[in-house]
């Protein structure tokens, strides 16, 4: 069980947060948001870190689930217990579709990135264009639509805590299973993996579907939690950029990396808030400096600093052709 020590420590630490910050609505919100972004970053780790699928439409996927859920609840008076899963299913289907088509057409990383980026824009314009349904830029109010749990700060926090726990659980199970080995082979050298008999399509689409489901879940829940859904919330700058930075900061292909990276970004965001409009510039500088200085991310760096204790090593496979028994 030492293998899961890091997760246990994380769980305890996160579970205790409301005890410290429970009184301040402001800090509870920051913490809750951090949890959502952590979940999203875990999902993106699956997509980009493990199966090299550069989906630049995370905001659109999350937003799709959110809008579908809210609109269904609003228009058809469905309970969120039904509409949220439907929203999640939509996101998962979209993600799987993108993945399948990309593998089918043999699209490389940048192509996938650009096609998904285009989808991001399509989503944005679709929301703005279908004004009667989505209320355009102003957005839809989701408060009071039948999800009271998310309207109480502490309860909402634990809902998203459960989401993150679920995401990490799924991630860990996947990595330990045959899929995990396939992912490792895939991210190393796709052609060789295919030649070794690994069904590349199946594993990539699987990863995409699961990751998109997590993203959709986060999106739909966030939509209700936030009280309002609007296109600017689920934008590229609003979600994709923080998640990307978070993953790079924390370390790709590690278990805790996405969590720590997202937390670090949340911290940076708070620090940068007083700069006002200049915050974008600060993100840019940070992105450049951090990526040049810490190529691997925080988790591997910490791993090296604290020695190769299981807590920080994550799920990375040993180097390519290293003989058995050699350190990673």
């Amino acid at each position: 069980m030492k293998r899961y020590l890091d997760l246990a420590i994380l769980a305890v630490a996160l579970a205790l947060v409301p005890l410290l910050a429970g009184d301040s609505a402001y800090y509870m919100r920051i913490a809750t948001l951090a949890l959502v972004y952590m979940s999203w970053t875990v999902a993106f780790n699956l997509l980009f870190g493990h199966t090299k699928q550069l989906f630049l439409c995370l905001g659109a996927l999350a937003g799709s689930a959110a809008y579908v859920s809210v609109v269904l609840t609003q228009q058809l008076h469905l309970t969120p217990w039904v509409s949220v899963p439907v929203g999640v299913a939509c996101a998962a289907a979209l993600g799987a579709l993108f993945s399948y088509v990309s593998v089918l057409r043999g699209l490389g990383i940048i192509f996938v990135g650009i096609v998904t980026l285009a989808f991001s824009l399509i989503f944005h314009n679709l929301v703005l264009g279908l004004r009667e349904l989505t209320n355009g830029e102003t957005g839809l109010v989701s408060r009071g639509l039948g999800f009271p749990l998310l309207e109480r700060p502490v309860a909402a926090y634990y809902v998203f805590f459960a989401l993150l726990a679920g995401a990490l659980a799924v991630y860990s199970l996947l990595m330990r299973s045959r899929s995990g080995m396939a992912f490792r082979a895939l991210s190393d050298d796709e052609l060789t993996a295919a030649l070794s008999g690994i069904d590349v399509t199946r594993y990539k689409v699987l990863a995409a579907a699961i990751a998109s489901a997590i993203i959709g879940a986060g999106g739909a829940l966030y939509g209700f939690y936030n009280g309002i859904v609007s296109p600017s919330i689920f934008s590229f700058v609003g979600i994709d950029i923080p998640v990307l930075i978070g993953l790079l900061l924390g370390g790709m292909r590690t278990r805790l990396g996405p969590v720590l990276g997202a937390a670090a970004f949340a911290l940076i965001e708070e620090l940068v808030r007083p700069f006002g409009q200049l915050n974008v510039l600060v993100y840019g500088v940070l992105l450049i400096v951090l990526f040049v200085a810490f190529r691997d991310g925080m988790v591997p760096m910490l791993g090296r600093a604290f020695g190769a204790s299981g807590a920080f090593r994550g799920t990375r496979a040993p180097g390519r052709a290293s003989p058995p028994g050699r350190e990673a």
Partner: protein
Amino acid sequence: MTAILFDGIVQGLQLSLLAVGITLIYGLGGVLNLAHGQFAVFGGVAAALLVSSGVHPLLAAVAGVACAGILGILVDRTLLLPAYRYRGEERLLLGLILTLGLSFVIDGALNYKFPEFSLTFRLPIQVIDVAGIPMRSAGLAASLIAIVVFASLFAFLRLTLLGKTIRSIIENEVGAELCGIDPGRTRTLIVCLATMMAGVAGITQGLFSSLGTEMGPEFTTLGLLVAVVGGVRSVNGTLAAGVLLGIVNAFASHYVGAYVAYIILLCAAIATILVRPAGLLARFT
């Protein structure tokens, strides 16, 4: 009908102008410049600042373009150095992140210092009659500039030794090195040319429409799309793709709403990428 077609070609040429810079930088440097739109805006802002301090608009425009080029050289020689130390996919990814960061830096800086900025050049004559059809002189001027730039580029690439060297590197970097060609030195030159063309695109945007500091990301995205549709290493393809998508957008905008037109444009771009991933005019994969 022809008016729409003309409008489409004008827009399309602007798209191509933006996109060709991305194509060149990718072809030569193996880096996808996510800050390309910001170079366009930068050039426009530089020109506007000069105009407001009394410089003649034409001179200011040229100076703006030059500024974009100089910034390009600076970026290539400093920021992108870590990326150039790697090859292939690693370089691509690192370059993506670095240029993304750069785009934020430029975007943030410009939006902060000039939040109300809008660049518009006004021509003395608004409408010109061409073969009985009244056309906006701004559109004509913008297209003319774009055509001249492209013609010069083509002449340069096809007829000069340096141009052929550049094509050879884009086509096959290994083959070029085997001829004794140093890709690094040529690359800075090309980055400079590419960012200057972005500057031109930014200024012509101010000519037939208006340029705002927040347009950077949109420019970059459109440029990327057109570059990829045209085949991310093909200059001819980029020109064709830009004009084609510009025409599609013009017709779509006319018959349906602006949002739907944009969606159609994006879907058209995606469809082309899926059907011909190697590029519109790709002949040899």
